[in-house]
C-alpha cells in the first residue's frame, strides 16, 4: 500500500488481485447478492485509491480494507431493508426475504431442505444474524482475522467481540442443528468445499 501511496499504479493492481476474491465473498455473504457485492467491492477499491495519499501504516492494510467494506455493506443492508419495508406495504413478503423466513425450528428446516440445498440454508442462517454478529462471524470464520483486528474493523472492544461471536455461534448452532445432525453426503465430481 505504501507503494500505491507513492504513486506506483502496478502496486494497486497487485492489491486488487490479492484482495478482490476475499473482499467480494465477504460482501456477498453480507448482502447476499452477487451484483451488489461486486458494486460494493468496486467502491471499496475506489475509496482505497482515493485515500491512498492519506494512508498511514498504523494499522494493517486488511483491517483498513475490511473496515471500509463492512461500513459499506452495513449501509447497503440498511438501505435495502428500508426499501423492502416500503415495498412490503403493497407486496407480500417474497420467499427470498431472508432473516425472518429462516426456519427457526427443525420442522421448517426439514421442509426447506427439500427445496434448497444445504449451502443456501447455511447462507440464510448467516444472513439472519444481526448485522454486526454476521460481520464478526464472516471475518472470524472466513477471513481468519484475529480478535484484535476484527475488533478494530467493527470498532468495538475485544471483550465485546468475544461476546458477539459467542451469541452468533450460539444462534447458528440452534438454527443449523438439523444440518449438523445430517452431515453432507459427498457428491460425485464435486470438489472440496471452500
Amino acid at each position: 500500500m505504501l507503494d500505491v501511496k507513492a504513486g506506483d499504479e502496478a502496486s494497486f493492481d497487485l492489491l486488487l488481485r490479492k484482495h478482490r476474491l476475499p473482499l467480494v465473498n465477504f460482501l456477498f455473504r453480507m448482502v447476499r447478492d452477487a451484483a451488489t457485492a461486486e458494486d460494493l467491492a468496486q467502491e471499496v477499491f475506489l475509496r482505497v485509491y482515493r485515500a491512498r495519499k492519506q494512508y498511514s501504516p498504523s494499522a494493517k492494510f486488511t483491517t483498513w480494507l475490511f473496515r471500509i467494506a463492512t461500513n459499506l455493506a452495513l449501509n447497503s443492508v440498511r438501505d435495502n431493508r428500508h426499501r423492502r419495508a416500503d415495498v412490503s406495504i403493497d407486496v407480500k413478503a417474497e420467499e427470498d426475504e431472508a432473516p425472518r423466513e429462516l426456519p427457526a425450528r427443525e420442522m421448517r428446516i426439514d421442509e426447506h431442505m427439500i427445496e434448497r440445498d444445504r449451502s443456501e440454508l447455511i447462507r440464510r442462517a448467516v444472513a439472519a444474524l444481526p448485522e454486526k454478529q454476521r460481520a464478526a462471524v464472516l471475518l472470524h470464520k472466513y477471513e481468519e482475522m484475529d480478535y484484535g483486528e476484527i475488533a478494530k474493523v467493527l470498532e468495538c472492544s475485544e471483550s465485546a467481540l468475544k461476546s458477539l461471536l459467542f451469541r452468533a455461534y450460539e444462534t447458528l448452532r440452534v438454527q443449523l442443528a438439523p444440518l449438523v445432525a445430517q452431515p453432507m453426503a459427498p457428491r460425485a465430481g464435486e470438489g472440496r468445499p471452500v
Partner: protein
Amino acid sequence: MKCHEVENELIAYLDRRANSADRKQLEEHLATCSACRLRAEGFRKVWNVLDEVPSIEPSLGFDARLRQRVAAEPRARWTGWFVPQPRLALSMALLIALSAWMGNMPPTTSPDNEMGTKQQFEMIKDLPVLENYDELSKFDALSELGPAPVAVPEQDHSANPNGGGS
C-alpha cells in the same frame, strides 16, 4: 469457572488462541458440565458446516471495470498548487496583517533624534544665507565702517544707502 463465564472464553478456546491458564480452567469446566460440553461440540460442528458454503468468483469484467473507474479519477496536476490550503492561507494572512500593523506604527522618537530635527530646522531657515555665504563673506570689510545709522530721515532720499560718499 461458571457457565456464564464460558461465554467469554469458549471461542478463543476452540480457536486454540486461549492462554494456558484459561484453557485449563475451561477444560476442567467442560469435563464437569455437559451443557457447556454440548455447546462447545455444537460450535465445532457449525464451523465445519460453514465451510460447506462455496465461494463466488468476481465477474470477468471486474478488474477492467475497476481500472476504468480508477483511470477516470482526477489526477494530481501542477494546478494542485492552487488548491486552497488553510494553513498556508492563514500564515499568509497573518504575515500581511503584521506588515500592515508595523507600517502604521508611529516612528520612534528619542532626545537625540529631537535635537537632530531642531538643527535641521535651523539649517533650513538659514539656507539662503548659507547659499550666498561666499558673496556675503566679501562684505567683511564693511564692518570697519562701524554701525549703520539707526534711522534715515525722509528728506535724505539722495543719500547713499551704503553710508554714502565712499
